[in-house]
């Protein structure tokens, strides 16, 4: 497996330096950007595997970066990274196309694992995001498209365990599944999160003016 090429987009230089140190030799950092304006040309030029993307940027949110490069560089994967507590911010970036969300307090080892997962096209859900998603899909609102607007019982179980702080391996052991199956459940939830027209998701996204 080749070393992942990573771009860090965050407006705090100290935080970028911290992530660089934490990741060490596990990945190759090919560039850093502090703003949307810097990030877009950098990503187009370096064509990295994964972009670590701050949800909050001074000149537009992380979704502006995704929107700016998605057409020309469809292969670049985004992992949202934030200290933000607000569900709508996180949901907006994921609906814009990020393949996951982790909080900034994540350890270097876990972050490396998350980068690998995202680079391979899987989804990465932090406990907090899992809680948001259960919330968003949890209401008794009538469902228009059962395939997209509802989570299966298994997907719910997986999300609850993620929310409880279980790693994929631990979830697999607890539910007697393979890690691969757990991953496919999470990816399926990500797809629903991005494509569902459920009212809460649309409202959250609309509040951030991204639809």
């Amino acid at each position, binding site marked *: 497996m080749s070393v992942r090429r990573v771009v860090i987009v965050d407006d705090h230089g100290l935080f970028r330096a911290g992530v660089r140190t934490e990741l060490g030799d596990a990945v190759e950092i090919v560039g850093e950007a502090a703003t949307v304006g810097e990030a877009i040309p950098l990503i187009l030029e370096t064509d990295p595997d994964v972009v670590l993307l701050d949800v909050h940027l001074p000149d537009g949110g992380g979704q502006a970066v995704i929107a700016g490069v998605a057409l020309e560089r469809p292969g670049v994967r985004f992992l949202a990274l934030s200290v933000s*507590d*607000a569900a709508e911010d996180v949901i907006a970036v994921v609906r814009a196309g990020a393949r996951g969300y982790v909080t900034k*307090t994540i350890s270097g080892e876990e972050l490396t694992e998350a980068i690998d997962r995202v680079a391979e096209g899987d989804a990465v859900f932090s406990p907090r995001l*899992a*809680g948001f998603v259960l*919330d968003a899909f*949890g209401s008794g609102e009538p469902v228009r498209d059962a395939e997209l607007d509802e989570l299966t019982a298994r997907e719910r179980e997986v999300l609850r365990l993620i*929310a*409880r702080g279980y790693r994929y391996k631990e979830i697999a052991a607890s539910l007697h599944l393979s890690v691969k199956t757990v991953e496919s459940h999470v990816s399926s939830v990500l797809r629903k999160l991005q494509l569902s027209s459920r009212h809460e998701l649309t409202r959250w996204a609309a509040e951030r003016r991204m639809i």
Partner: protein
Amino acid sequence: MAETGTIPARDRANGVVAGVAAGIARALGVDPTLVRLLFALLTLAAGAGIALYLAAALLMPEEPGVRTSRARRAVGLALLLLAAVAVLNGLGLPAFVQLAAAIAAAGVFFLWRRQQRLLGTLLVAAAGVLLLTRGGDLGAGGPLLTPAAFAGGLLLVVGPWLWRTVQERDAERTRRIRSEERAEVAARVHDSVLQTLALVQREADDPKRVAQLARRQERELRGWLYPEGQLFQEDTLVAAIGNAAAEVEELHGVRVEVASAGNAPLDNDGRAVVLAAREAMANAARFSGADEVSVYAEADAEAINVFVRDRGAGFDREAVPAERRGLAESIEGRMTRHGGTATIMSNPGEGTEVELTLPRKAS
């Protein structure tokens, strides 16, 4: 707003002849047609409107900020004077009133320019004396005209000064509000951030303590900067769990990650769940050796569930000394008393998870 004291520029793009009326209208923020109408009306007063227009065309610069030449200004001022005389003549006023008006105008000019104030005051006073002494010659209109002339003169003299004073007071108020805000921010930064930085320097050898200080500071600052984003209002389950997690983070220097789905108002039983959860977090922080604790709270119509999990040492229930009351009393006993349950799953070497369940009463 145009700067006070500068002559507005002509507006050739929107003008009909030389852009005078359009320029004045733009500076005053009125309809140019109104200004043109005024010029037309003044033309009836022995052609004063025409003289005034020519004067304005000479005096007003073609572009803002450009000064017109001395010669143009001199001719312009002469035309202005001519127009004034024409208007006064047109009103049928006797020569001495016109003389008084001219003297007063010169005085006001000096006062406005804030040069030769003594001369200006003397000129205005002389005009006043002239009007007073000869006022009787005006006939029936005299007693009315003299006070009106005084009032108008006073306004001309005091007006600009009053205007400047009001503007300065507004600017002063804005400055004061800004400096008060600055002082408040400075006080806040001093009380919290600088104190924390000082502590961080002193405790630099103890990374755990430094991380703890930084976390507390971050939380405090965030709460101050984004008050509406605060989870910590003590009236819901999720908010209270968040508070408990923050307390444990500060007290024991571990990370507590809180996730939640759903929420419930905080009643007496709900508070018991929060207290039990806090005890479970504190236990994990003190005894497990893990540097992170995961908390997940969920609430739906049937039940409240809270999970507290660590990946630390784990323990064997049988080996816990009886005098450690935390588990038995603060967690299990408390949950039972409020009609709920506590389940503790732990294996040495694999960590611990405490599950708290409280059925919700049909209300």
